[in-house]
C-alpha cells in the first residue's frame, strides 16, 4: 500500500513541474510591457528600464522560470501588478470562499445524485428514472453561466426568495452551490445507476434473492456497497474539479474566490496574479486525483494486491 502511494506521488511530481513550465511560458511570452501597465501615466524610458531591472524582467526566460519555480516552492508567487500585494496571500484569503462553495456544491451533488441514481436503477425506465436522467442530461448540457442567470431570474428577481449575488450568510450559497453542483449530481446519478445495475447482474445477488431476501435488503445490504466503489472515486475527483471549476459560478454570483481572482486578473492583465491562481487551482486538481487514486486503493483490496 505504502509502495503504491509512493509510486503515485512520484508520478505527480513531473506532472506538476510540467504544469509550471506550461503556465510560465504561456504567460511570460505575452507581448506588452508589464511595467508600462503598472504605471498608467506616461513615464520616461530610463524609469521603465530601472523598474524592469529591479523586477529582473530582462533576465533570460529560463532564469526567470527557475526563479519562479524556486519562489513557488517556498510559497512565494510574486506580487500582483495591480493590487501591489503578494499573490499568495490574495489567493489564500480567497480560498476559504471557494472551499465553502465547492463543499456545498459537492454535498448537493451527493445528496441528490446518489439517491436519484439508486431510485433510477431500482425503478428502471419508470417515470422517476426518465425524469432524473433528463435532469442529469440537462445538467451537463446547460452552460453554467446561463443556468446561473436563470436561477437568479427565477429565485431572486421573480420570487425574491434568495439574494441575487454576494457572499454573506448561508442564503447566498444556495443558488451557486446548486448551479455548480448540478452537473456533478447528474454525473453521479448516472454512474450510480449504471454501476448498481451492473452489480445487480452478479451471481451473488441472485443467491441473495434465491435465499428469500426482499429486494430492499438485497440492494442496500449487498449491491449498494460494491456499486458505490466507482462512484466514490469520481466523487473525490469531482471535489477537486468543483474547487477549480467555480470560475464562472463565482463570477456570476460575485463570490470572492480563487476563480474570480483568475477572471479579474485576466481582465486587469495582472500576470503574476493569473499565474498564481492557475497554478494553485491546477495543483488542487492534481492533488485531488492523487487522493482519488489512493482512496480507491484503500476501498478496493484488489488494487492493493497489484
Amino acid at each position: 500500500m505504502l509502495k503504491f502511494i509512493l509510486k503515485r506521488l512520484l508520478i505527480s511530481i513531473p506532472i506538476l513541474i510540467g504544469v509550471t513550465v506550461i503556465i510560465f511560458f504561456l504567460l511570460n511570452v505575452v507581448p506588452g510591457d508589464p511595467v508600462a501597465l503598472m504605471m498608467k501615466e506616461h513615464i520616461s524610458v530610463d524609469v521603465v528600464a530601472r523598474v524592469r531591472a529591479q523586477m529582473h524582467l530582462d533576465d533570460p526566460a529560463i532564469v526567470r522560470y527557475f526563479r519562479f519555480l524556486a519562489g513557488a516552492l517556498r510559497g512565494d508567487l510574486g506580487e500582483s501588478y495591480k493590487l501591489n500585494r503578494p499573490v499568495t496571500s490574495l489567493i489564500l484569503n480567497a480560498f476559504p470562499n471557494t472551499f465553502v462553495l465547492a463543499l456545498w456544491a459537492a454535498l448537493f451533488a451527493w445528496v441528490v445524485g446518489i439517491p436519484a441514481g439508486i431510485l433510477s436503477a431500482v425503478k428502471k425506465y419508470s417515470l422517476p428514472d426518465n425524469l432524473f436522467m433528463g435532469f442529469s442530461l440537462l445538467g451537463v448540457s446547460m452552460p453554467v453561466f446561463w443556468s446561473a442567470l436563470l436561477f437568479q431570474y427565477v429565485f431572486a428577481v421573480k420570487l425574491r426568495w434568495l439574494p441575487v449575488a454576494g457572499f454573506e450568510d448561508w442564503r447566498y450559497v444556495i443558488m451557486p452551490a446548486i448551479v455548480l453542483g448540478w452537473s456533478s449530481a447528474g454525473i453521479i446519478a448516472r454512474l450510480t445507476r449504471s454501476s448498481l445495475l451492473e452489480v445487480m447482474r452478479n451471481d451473488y445477488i441472485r443467491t441473495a434473492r434465491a435465499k428469500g431476501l426482499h429486494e430492499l435488503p438485497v440492494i442496500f445490504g449487498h449491491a449498494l456497497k460494491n456499486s458505490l466503489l466507482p462512484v466514490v472515486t469520481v466523487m473525490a475527483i469531482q471535489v477537486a474539479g468543483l474547487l477549480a471549476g467555480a470560475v464562472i459560478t463565482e463570477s456570476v454570483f460575485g463570490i470572492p474566490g480563487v476563480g474570480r481572482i483568475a477572471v479579474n486578473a485576466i481582465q486587469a492583465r495582472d500576470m503574476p496574479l493569473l499565474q498564481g491562481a492557475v497554478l494553485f487551482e491546477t495543483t488542487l486538481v492534481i492533488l485531488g486525483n492523487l487522493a482519488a487514486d489512493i482512496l480507491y486503493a484503500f476501498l478496493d483490496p484488489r488494487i492493493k494486491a497489484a
Partner: protein
Amino acid sequence: MGMNDPKEQDLTLACCAAGTCEEEESIAPPSSFLKDVVIAYRRNRLAMVGAAIVLILFLMAVFAPWLTPYDPYAIDLEVMTEAPSWSHWLGTDQFGRDLLTRILYGTRISLVIGIVPTLLSMIIGTTLGLIGGYYGGKTDMVIMRLCDIVLAFPSLLLAMVVMYTLGATLVNIFIALAAVGWAGTARVVRSQVLSLKEKEFVEAARAVGVKNRVIMVRHILPNCLPALIVLFTLGIPGAILSEASLSFLGVGAQPPTPSWGLIVTSGKEFLFSAPWVAIAPGLFILVTVLAFNFMGDGFRDALDPYMKQ
C-alpha cells in the same frame, strides 16, 4: 476489425491461404460497415431527433440572411430592449438589434466553433496517439506525460490562459480549444492502437514488409475510426460550451459578434428589465448541445460492436 479495408482483407485472406487463419468470420463482417451503422443508428429515436435538430441548425446557419429581414449588426435605437412581438419574435437587445436575427447568425459561429477546434484537436490527438501507441518506448512515454500534464489543467482555465496570451480572436479560440482538447483523443487512440497492433493483420502487414507509416495510416487508423466518430460528435458540444464560457468571461468572441455566449453575457445586464435577451440564446446553446450529445450517444451505441477490440 470490421472496416472494409481492401488491403487488410487481402492480407487476412493471404493468411487464411497459409493456414494461419482460424475463424472464417473474422475476415470481413457479413454486411457493410456503413449500412450496419446506419441501421443501428436509425433505431435510436433520440439520436434521430438529435440529427434532425443538427440538420435544422445547419440550414439556419446557411440560410440566415434569407430567413430574416434584419441585419444582425444594424443598431436601431428606437426599439431598444423591446419585448418579443410580431415584428421581433424574440424581442430586441440593448441596441435595438433583432434578437432572433442575431441568434440565427450566431448559429454560424457556434457550429464553426463546435466543429473546427474539435477537428483540430482530433487531428493532433490522433497523430500523437498513433505514434505513441505504435512505436511505444520513449516516444510513447513523452507523449503520454504531455497528455497527463494537459489533462491535469482545469480545461477552462487553460483555455483562458491561452486566450490571454494569444488575444481574443476567433482563430485563437480554435487554437485554445484544440490545445486543451487533443490530449483526451490521444489517450483513446493510443489505447486502441495498443490492442490493434497486436492483431494478426498488422503482423501480416509487417511480415510482408509494409512500412510503419503505411501500417499506421492504412491499417490501424481505419480501425480507430468508430471511436474517432464518437469522440468527434461528443467533442462538438464541449467546444460550443467552452466558447460560450470564454465569451462570457470576456476572453472569447468580442462584441459585436453575434456569438450566443456573448449575447447571453450582454443580456446579463438587463436580466430584470429584458430577461429574453439572456434566456433565448442560452436555450439555443442548450438545444444544440443536447442534439449533438444525442447524436454522439447514438453513434456510440451504433458503433459499439466495432469498438470492442
